[in-house]
């Protein structure tokens, strides 16, 4: 452990009100911590900048699942393991199941939270592409009140979010897909388990009369933020399954992304593989049985 423990302080409020009051009193002074699976890595390496930690783990308001006929609402403290235990998640959001399974090791899945995965704002996180594909919304709460924002507008730049210093992510809400749907998730991480993604693509398409009427593609590790492949989506929506413009979509997605060379992969590899995985997704979509 390279951090100097006496330099750090931690507070564990018992209720949401108390936590929000503390955040409001000293906005920006606190680093909220839930599962700690990202922050403790930095702490161990002596690189955790925030010195005052606000432990959210006792706040029951940030837990719990509401399963309505039209949507599923998840408390931000839900762990990957808890996600995997939810029947509704398996039934309506299979990509979320796959992304939870693809995250870290079992020990990480037991501690890490969905809210943490969002606010850590890593472009390589495994659940955001699925949340983008499902049109998620996040609820932000503060002593000033609460607001809902569309998740695809939440990430604004590398580690920059539509999140004020006094706000916490309280809930994540997902509309349940209606009608005939197609779900696709692929994480490319070199090895089969415990990998950090080099490219990640999640997609949800709605099909009516063998035409793609709705498509959302979420991408990870290919831009400063997890993002929607809006140009690629636009190329495909409204097209018949038998005539999906695969090459057009492949060209369009390169306009959507802005990958970099880093220690895990080259920008070129990410570009080619993003195009390939998108094409693979569209091939599978084109082959979807609709009768």
């Amino acid at each position, binding site marked *: *452990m*390279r*951090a*100097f*423990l*006496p330099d750090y302080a931690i507070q564990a409020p018992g209720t949401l009100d108390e936590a929000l009051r503390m955040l409001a009193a000293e906005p920006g002074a606190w680093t909220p911590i839930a599962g700690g699976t990202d922050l403790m890595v930095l702490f161990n*390496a*002596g690189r955790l900048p925030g010195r005052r930690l606000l432990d959210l783990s006792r706040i029951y308001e940030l837990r719990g699942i509401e399963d309505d006929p039209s949507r599923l609402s998840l408390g931000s403290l839900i762990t990957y393991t808890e996600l995997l235990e939810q029947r509704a998640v398996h039934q309506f959001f299979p990509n979320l199941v796959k992304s939870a399974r693809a995250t870290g090791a079992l020990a990480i899945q037991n501690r890490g939270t969905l809210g943490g995965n969002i606010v850590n704002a890593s472009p390589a996180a495994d659940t955001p592409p699925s949340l983008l594909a499902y049109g998620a919304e996040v609820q932000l709460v503060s002593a000033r009140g609460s607001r809902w924002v569309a998740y695809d507008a939440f990430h604004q730049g590398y580690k920059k979010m539509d999140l004020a210093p006094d706000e916490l992510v309280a809930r994540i809400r997902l509309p349940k897909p209606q009608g005939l749907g197609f779900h696709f998730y692929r994480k*490319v991480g*070199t*090895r*089969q*388990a*415990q*990998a*950090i993604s080099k*490219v990640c693509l999640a997609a949800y398409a709605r099909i009516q009369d063998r035409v793609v009427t709705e498509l959302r593609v979420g991408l990870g590790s290919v831009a400063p933020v997890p993002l929607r492949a809006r140009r690629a989506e636009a190329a495909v929506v409204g097209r018949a399954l038998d005539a999906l413009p695969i090459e057009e979509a492949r060209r369009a997605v390169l306009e959507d992304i802005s990958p970099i060379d880093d*220690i*895990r*992969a*080259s920008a*070129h*590899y990410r570009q*080619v*593989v993003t195009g*390939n*995985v998108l*094409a*693979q997704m569209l091939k599978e979509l084109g082959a979807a049985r609709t009768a």
Partner: protein
Amino acid sequence: MEVHVIGASTIRKEGRGKVMGSAAYADDVDLPGCLLGMTVRSRCARGVLKGITFLEGVPWDEITVVTAADIPGKNFVAGHVDDQPFLVPVGGAIAHAEQPVLLLAHADRAVAEKARRLVRLDVEELPPLLDIEEALACVRVIHGERNVLKEIRIAKGDPEPVFAAAAHVVEGVYRTGAQEQLYLEPNVMIGTVEHGPAGLEVTVSGSLQCPYYVHDAMKQLFGIPGERVRVVALEMGGAFGGKEDYPSVIAGHAALLALKSGRPVKIAYDREEDMAATTKRHPSRTRIRSAFDAQGRLLALDIDFALDGGAFTTLSPVVLSRGALHAAGVYRCPDVRILARAVATNTPPCGAFRGFGAPQSLFAIERHMDVCARRMGMDPVELRRLNVLRQGDTMATGQVMREDPGLEGLMDRAMAAIDYRALQKAYAVRNAWDDPVKRGVGLSVFMHGCGFTGSGEATMASVAGVEGRPDGTVAVLAASTEMGQGKNTVFCQIVAETLGLPVDMVDMAEVDTKYVPNSGPTVASRSTMVVGRILEDAARGLRLALVQGGFLAEPYDPEAFREAMRAAHLKLGSLKTYGQYRANPGFAWDDKTYRGDAYPNFSWACYAAAVAVDLVTFEVKVEDFATVQEVGRVVNPTLAAGQIQGGVAQGIGWGLWEEVTFREGRMANNQLTNYIIPTAADLPHIRVEFLEGGSPFGPGGAKGIGELPMDGPAPALLNALRDALGDLRLDEVPMTPERILNRLEEARHA
């Protein structure tokens, strides 16, 4: 009573403690008053240390600080060449970015860590030399006259005229990257220094492979005789060669801090420091030129083998030697020329890693044979069959194959195990389908020389012994260490077999240089074959002593043996017998000309791999892996199979994923998240078959197996990738998805 212990899968001696969590590793040892040590490193690949500044922020008066000026003896780590300092002195040269400059110790590790960040080094930076080609081209000279740490030439006949007349000449260049050993337990060392009647007495204990290497290093560092140095090997969580030479450095650091502070000092590296600072497998570059006749018979080989040794000599001369001696592979060839050079660069010194130079040169020759076969329109399997060594053939050093290695038989067995020809047929059909997954199968044939190279064993003249204890059990006295390979168990089996006792009656004595003789380092696939043989002699000596002393009558049962030892103890006080290495008659080696018998014997193997490449992501999945090896005699089948499977897993990692990324001479991916080793999910079922040919040199006929499985996977995998993907430049490991994409694009644009 007839007891057969050799050949039985007896239970691992230290297994229970490890499984139950009661085994005490060095970091579990708490000494009263112990301080925790930290290392301040150079952080600059090349330069001159001008000065050291201590910034405010910690109570410096509580912190023990050691610089090169505090060293009582010689500031060089004992080795083949004394060129690696324990600490860079002010005014001294900095040769790599992880070089220790200053040591700190405090009772609170966090304070020591904070202090480490408050030391500023004033360094005059110089441009570094960072790779093999730059070093060979003498872009800058950082060592000797031309950056060469060691050069070896092997010559048999004269290949040059053969190339001019040959039907086929094929050339190739092959590269391999550095690899981290990644033992589970990072390096830990504890040092204590006492002022005895004769002067300083130094004790170090920790995670180390070679107690007497550390012993030599402490003698030189403190300038004291051997009897005042004590080295204890504690429970070890893996090593793979990574704890062969570097523990001498850490032990020296801990002992220097202990001397200055007057308290015991523990230095425990965390994973990041361990990966960044300690030794790796040598990166390599091999050029091969080969000549064949019209039928595909190998006529001549011209091999230029180069290793990146890093900043200091360390073990590079011997790693180079083993690499050079394996460079011509398992092929008969009348005219051979091998030029082998280890070059200096401004990177942390490379060191020992399972295989020790052989995986690098064997990768090159085994990949090259495939390239040659395809170039000549032959089946790679048939080309090998035509050219493999047979009884009576000579190797590159002139070593005569006294027995037939049976290589064709090994190939037949491995191909049958993986169903090679059937896979080839099926893949030929399936790869034509519109499916992004392409499959291929490939193999490698190789050997690994057992024990030290050439005259190494004779020079070391290792000693090991057995002790009859008063309670009637037997202790094995050897400085060989247990790093997970099963030495404890195998040594006890060998002694138990020789004495006709159940294995429960034999135990290892603690590996402490005060009590156990120098049985040599725990390296080079030598423990079972060389030390095991010495123990066989020592155990025979114990039995003979009991029989001739009138304590024991043959035949006997274990109870009678117990009684005899009790009686002998009462009369003699102590009962220890020793054996010493005996050179094999008829074997000769000349270190100057590199002619003669390079190794007393070789283990032989053929490995076959089936791979699937996904052209969507360029990821490779190893779908099946078959290993067949001739290892003399298998002492413990479970442990032996574990050795093979573990080695193959490391070989697969080296071949496909494990890449040490250097930036300005420092490892940039020194974390498990970014240095990709295979998980269980990435590995196929690894089939293991042993053929037991027997060997006159090892105990019960055993040869070495520890390193063999590291040699074969990388070439077998890349040969299989060639089968899957067609004619690509598959000349480098690790063959990562990025490189496969790059090679495919290169082929498309060609």
